[in-house]
C-alpha cells in the first residue's frame, strides 16, 4: 500500500448536541404508532383472537354449567368464567404482539430500528406500549359482551376492569418481549408460547375458584403472576353481582397467603412490579444484542 498510515485517527467533527430524551420519546411514539397501524390493518387477527375467549366463555361456560347448576344457584357459570375470558383475550393478544419482535427480526425490520441513533429502551418501550394497547383493545371487545355473561354494564365496573386489563396487558407484553428478546425464529417463539401459555392460564384461577385446593395446586397458583391479575378483575365483577353471600364466597375466595387474603392493592402492585421488572430485563437483553 502506497499511502502512509502511521498517524493516529483523531475524530475531527465535534459531536452534535445529543438529541436526548425528547428524541427518544419521539421514537417510543413512532414505534407505538407502527404497532397501531399494523393492528388496525390486520382485521383477521382481531377476529381470530376473539374466537378463543368467546368459545371458552359461551361453549365451555354454558356446557359446564349443566354440571354445576345446582351448587351455584342463580349464578351462571359464564359469569364466574367471565374474568377468566377477559384475561385470556389479553393474555393471547399480548403474547402475539410480543411475537412481532421475533417476526421483525426474521424479516429484517428490527435491524432498521436497532441501528438507528435511538436508545434501546425507547424501542422496547414503544413495542411494549404497542402490545399493551392492542391487548387492551382486544380485552375491551370482550368487555362489551358483559351483558351476555350476566355482568351488569356499570360505568365504575367498566372503568376499573379497563384499568386492570391495561396493567395486565402491559405486564404480559413485557413478559412476551423478555421471552422474545433472544429468539431468532418465529416457530421457536410460538413453541415456547404454547409451552408457557396453557400452564400460566390453567394455574391462574381463571377456570376455577382458588379456595379449598390441594396444597400443591395452592402453591402453584400462588406462584403464578397471572393469578394476581385475574383475581382483581373477578373481585371487581363480583362486587357488582347479586347472589347469596355463601355462593359469592365460594366462587370468589380471593388469593390467600396462609389464610390471609391479599388485598387488591397489593395484587396490582405485584403485577405492576413484575411488568417493570420483566421490561427491564427485556431492555437489558436488547442492549446486549448486536
Amino acid at each position, binding site marked *: 500500500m502506497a499511502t502512509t498510515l502511521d498517524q493516529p*485517527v483523531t475524530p475531527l467533527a465535534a459531536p452534535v448536541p445529543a438529541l436526548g430524551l425528547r428524541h427518544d420519546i419521539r421514537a417510543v411514539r413512532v414505534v407505538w404508532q407502527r404497532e397501531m397501524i399494523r393492528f388496525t390493518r390486520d382485521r383477521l387477527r382481531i377476529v381470530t383472537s376473539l374466537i378463543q375467549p368467546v368459545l371458552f366463555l359461551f361453549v365451555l361456560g354454558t356446557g359446564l354449567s349443566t354440571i354445576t347448576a345446582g351448587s351455584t344457584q342463580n349464578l351462571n357459570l359464564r359469569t364466574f368464567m367471565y374474568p377468566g375470558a377477559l384475561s385470556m383475550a389479553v393474555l393471547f393478544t399480548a403474547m402475539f404482539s410480543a411475537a412481532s419482535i421475533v417476526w421483525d427480526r426474521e424479516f429484517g425490520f428490527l435491524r*432498521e430500528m436497532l441501528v438507528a441513533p435511538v436508545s434501546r429502551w425507547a424501542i422496547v418501550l414503544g413495542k411494549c406500549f404497542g402490545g399493551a394497547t392492542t391487548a387492551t383493545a382486544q380485552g375491551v371487545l370482550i368487555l362489551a359482551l358483559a351483558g351476555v355473561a350476566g355482568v351488569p354494564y356499570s360505568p365504575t365496573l367498566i372503568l376499573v376492569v379497563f384499568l386492570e386489563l391495561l396493567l395486565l396487558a402491559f405486564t404480559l407484553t413485557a413478559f412476551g418481549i423478555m421471552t422474545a428478546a433472544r429468539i431468532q425464529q418465529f416457530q421457536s417463539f410460538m413453541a415456547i408460547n404454547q409451552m408457557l401459555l396453557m400452564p400460566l392460564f390453567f394455574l391462574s384461577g381463571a377456570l376455577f375458584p382458588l379456595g379449598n385446593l390441594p396444597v400443591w395446586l395452592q402453591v402453584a397458583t400462588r406462584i403464578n403472576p397471572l393469578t394476581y391479575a385475574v383475581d382483581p378483575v373477578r373481585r371487581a365483577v363480583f362486587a357488582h353481582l347479586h347472589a347469596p353471600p355463601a355462593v359469592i364466597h365460594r366462587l370468589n375466595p380471593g388469593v390467600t397467603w396462609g389464610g390471609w387474603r391479599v388485598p387488591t392493592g397489593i395484587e396490582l402492585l405485584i403485577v405492576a412490579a413484575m411488568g417493570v421488572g420483566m421490561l427491564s430485563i427485556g431492555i437489558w437483553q436488547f442492549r446486549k444484542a448486536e
Partner: protein
Amino acid sequence: MNPAVAVRGLTKRYGELVAVDSVDFDVATGEVFGFLGPNGAGKSTTIKMLCTLVEPTAGQASVAGFDVVRQRDDVRRHIGLVFQDPTLDQYLTADQNLQMHAELYGVPRSALKPRMTHVLEMVGLVERRSALVSTYSGGMKRRLEIARGLLHAPRVLFLDEPTVGLDPQTRSSIWRYINELRQREDITIFLTTHYMDEAEYCDRIAIMDHGNIVAMDTPEALKASVGKDRVQITTKDDEAAKIALQHRFDLAATIAEGQLTFAVAAGEEFVPRLFAELGIPIKSVSVSRPSLDDVFMSYTGTTIRDAEAEAGNQWMMRMVANRGGR
C-alpha cells in the same frame, strides 16, 4: 481534506477465527470506495464495525469524523445503511417506512415532506409512494432502501452488496442511481461487492482476502499493476501446446472451454514469437488487457469464484460443527 472514513489497525476476532486482521485505510470525502472480495473475506465484518454494529476487538476507526466506539450515536446519525438483506416493513407503505425512519433519526418535521419527495424522486418511486411495500418488486425494494438510507442526509452511505440477488437490468439501474447520487449529493459512498464488473464503477477499490487488504488503488492502477495481458489461443493439439508453452516460454497455461489461457507481459508483441516458435499450428489468438478478475487472481492466487466456493464450504463445515456441538 479530512477523510470520511479513517481506519487504523482494525481487528475483529471471533474466538480463534480472525475475521478482520489489523486493517488500515482511508476513504476521502466524496469518494466511491469499493470493498471487493469473496464472501467470508471480512468485508461484512469490517463494514459492520464501521457502522457500529459490531465492536472491534482492537484498533480504531472513525466515520464522518466520529469514533465508532466512543461516539456511536454520532456515527449512526451521519451514516446511511443499505444492508444485503431487506430491512423494510412490508406491511407499511413506502411513505410510512420513510416517516418511521425520519422519526428514528430525528429529522426535523419541517424538513420531512420535501426531503421524502426528494429521495423518492431520486430513485423513481414517487408514483408508488402510497403503495404497500409488499407489492414492490425486489429492485423497487432495494431502491426504496437506498432512498431511506439517504433520507436523513448522511455524510457516508454504506451499501453492503447493493445489487446482490437482482437481475442484470435492475443491477444496472441501481448503479445509475448511485452514479447520479455521487454527482448530485455531497456524499461518500462505501460499498462492498463481489461482482467484478461493478467494482469498475468505484473510484478506488480495496481487495480483501482472509481478513487482510491485499491491494488498494484505482481500478486502472490495479489492472496496470498486474503488468500482464491475457492471451487465449486455440490450437490443433491443446495438450501438446500446453507442454510446449511450458518448455519454450516458461508459461503456465490452463485449458478451459476448449482454449488455452495464459498471462504474459506485452501480449501483442509476444504473438509473433508464439507463431514462430510454438511448433503447433494455431487456429485463433486473442489478446486482452487484464480485468479485475486477473487482478484478484494475481493478488490472491485464486479466482473470486473459487474463493467463494471455498468460503462456502468452510461455512457449511462450521454450521455442521455447530449443530454437532449443541
